[in-house]
């Protein structure tokens, strides 16, 4: 069973992501699964509905590569890179094709994953009274609160065919540990039919079991774990490598020029066999310079019942 869960990223994507799927790639600035998105581009999977709260550079790349038919999100820019020009070209001038968009607020997207994860029919939200957003998104509807008789907006569950996230580490069974900004990953994973987790490292079972509270995603929710070192570049992994802020700044002129953007994708994604070759193309010195200095947590003591171990060993 263990060997079934831990697979290569190309294998996981080939097996679990199909043309026409609804896919969610989550990670809020931190732990963005860039390597997995690149692999979807390499495999040329098309007709995808792409769900991501803050689409970021990853959506610019995936949309420009041609595999995305529909975008479900709550923000259309990158925090520090500013505009996502491929997204803007698609929406403002249908260049090279229109891009249907389903838009929400951050809280609404969070609640959609929550309702999806809990298999609820909808989730209520108080953000849209008087807003024009329900007018442009027919899926933001209203129900009557059975307790007060007043109306409240609701959003539907979001159940992706596949959710993909990146994390610091997992064990061989697929218990995934995350620290730092954990965003909406737990909800997005439980909402999905199939789940791929890329990790910086596979650790021994004992490492996970020494700190079970840090396991955000238990193994029962995970279909594939793939070791992809530096798999979140140019975003970051808390405690490992920092965000490549220069890359985000350099993205603006690339994104502004459709020809240059497509050339970048051809060179760095389609022209590389896998993520290791992508990192070669980016430059190993550049990647090495992102390494963080250590700042370890204090450890906590989970304790053990004093006689439990003696009892077990005496059996």
């Amino acid at each position, binding site marked *: 069973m263990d060997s079934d869960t831990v697979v290569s990223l190309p294998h996981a994507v080939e097996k679990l992501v199909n043309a026409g799927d609804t896919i969610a790639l989550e990670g809020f600035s931190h732990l963005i699964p860039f390597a997995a998105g690149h692999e979807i581009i390499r495999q040329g999977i098309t007709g995808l509905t792409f769900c991501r709260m803050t689409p970021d550079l990853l959506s610019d790349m995936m949309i420009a590569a041609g595999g995305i038919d529909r975008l479900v999100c709550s923000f*259309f820019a990158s925090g520090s890179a500013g505009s996502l020009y491929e997204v803007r070209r698609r929406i403002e001038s249908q260049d090279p094709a229109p891009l249907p968009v389903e838009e929400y607020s951050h*809280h609404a997207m969070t609640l959609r994953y929550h309702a999806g994860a809990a298999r609820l029919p909808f989730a209520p939200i108080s*953000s849209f009274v*008087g*807003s024009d957003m329900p007018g442009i998104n027919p899926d933001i509807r209203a129900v009557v609160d059975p307790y007060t008789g007043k109306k409240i907006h609701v959003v539907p569950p979001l159940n992706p065919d596949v959710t993909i996230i990146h994390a610091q580490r997992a064990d061989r069974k697929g218990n995934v540990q995350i620290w*730092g*900004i954990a965003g*909406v990953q737990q*909800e997005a994973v439980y909402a999905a039919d199939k789940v791929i987790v890329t990790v910086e490292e596979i650790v021994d079972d004992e490492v996970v079991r020494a700190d079970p509270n840090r396991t955000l995603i238990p193994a029962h929710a995970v279909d594939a774990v793939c070791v992809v070192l530096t798999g979140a570049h140019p975003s970051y992994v808390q405690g490992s490598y920092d965000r490549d802020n220069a890359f985000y700044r350099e993205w603006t002129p690339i994104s502004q020029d459709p020809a240059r953007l497509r050339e970048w994708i051809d060179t760095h994604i389609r022209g590389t066999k896998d993520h290791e070759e992508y990192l070669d193309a980016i430059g190993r010195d550049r990647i090495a310079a992102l390494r963080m200095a250590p700042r370890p947590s204090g450890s906590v003591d989970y304790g053990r019942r004093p006689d439990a171990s003696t009892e077990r060993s005496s059996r």
Partner: protein
Amino acid sequence: MTTAADFTETELVVCAAAKMLAHSNTVFAGIGLPTLAVDLAHRTLNPDIQLVYESGVAGAHPESMAEGIADSVVVSGAEAVVNMHALFGYVLQGGNVDVGFLGAAQIDRFGSLNTTVIGDWDSPKVRLPGSGGAADIMANAGEVFVILRRHDPAALPSELDFVTSASPVRAAEHPDFIQPRGFGVSTVITPLGILRRKDRLGELELTHVHPGVTSEQVWEQTGWDLVVSDDLSVTQEPTAEEVRLLRDEIDTVRLYLR
């Protein structure tokens, strides 16, 4: 307190915002000028102020200037990191945020905001970033501060191209709905002056003009018949100490002070 010998428009705006945070406990802010304002308030008027980021970080103690709301430096050494369901559900919608900071491309006289499109949503002239957390912050923060980078009839029009984040005045047009808890926009700081709303269902009034600006200039640059407050005053200029803190301790790399 001696007035600073020289100060920029950005420094004036940040210092004005900081002074208004003297009595706030929890502030929800994006990166940029709001972060500077909260940091300055923390060092001058309000040592107990707590900054909450929409990334889930509460009580950040960054060792260097953060380049984003989810920068690794806001996590290392922070007092708490919660997931986004807890942040938007319990922290924000649960009523634990006193002041939310928002930016906008357009604001109307009641403090509704447009961050979605210029033109029609179906065929936009400019596609803007959308809500992000803005609609959620507007509905649920105790009050909202807005910092605008320009003050002209396009940014302060009589009618918004799109209402992303609705003021309680617009929400009240739908009395069959459970009403949002927040006051909406209380304060707007622009390059020309400060506009404030006194009543939850009232409209913005010009309460301050920046040094060298007249109320007539502000009125002309506003897309509606802007009410000028009876006790109109001039925005307090930054003190030498405030400018020193901003330049020499808070934003030493000039990431946001320009």
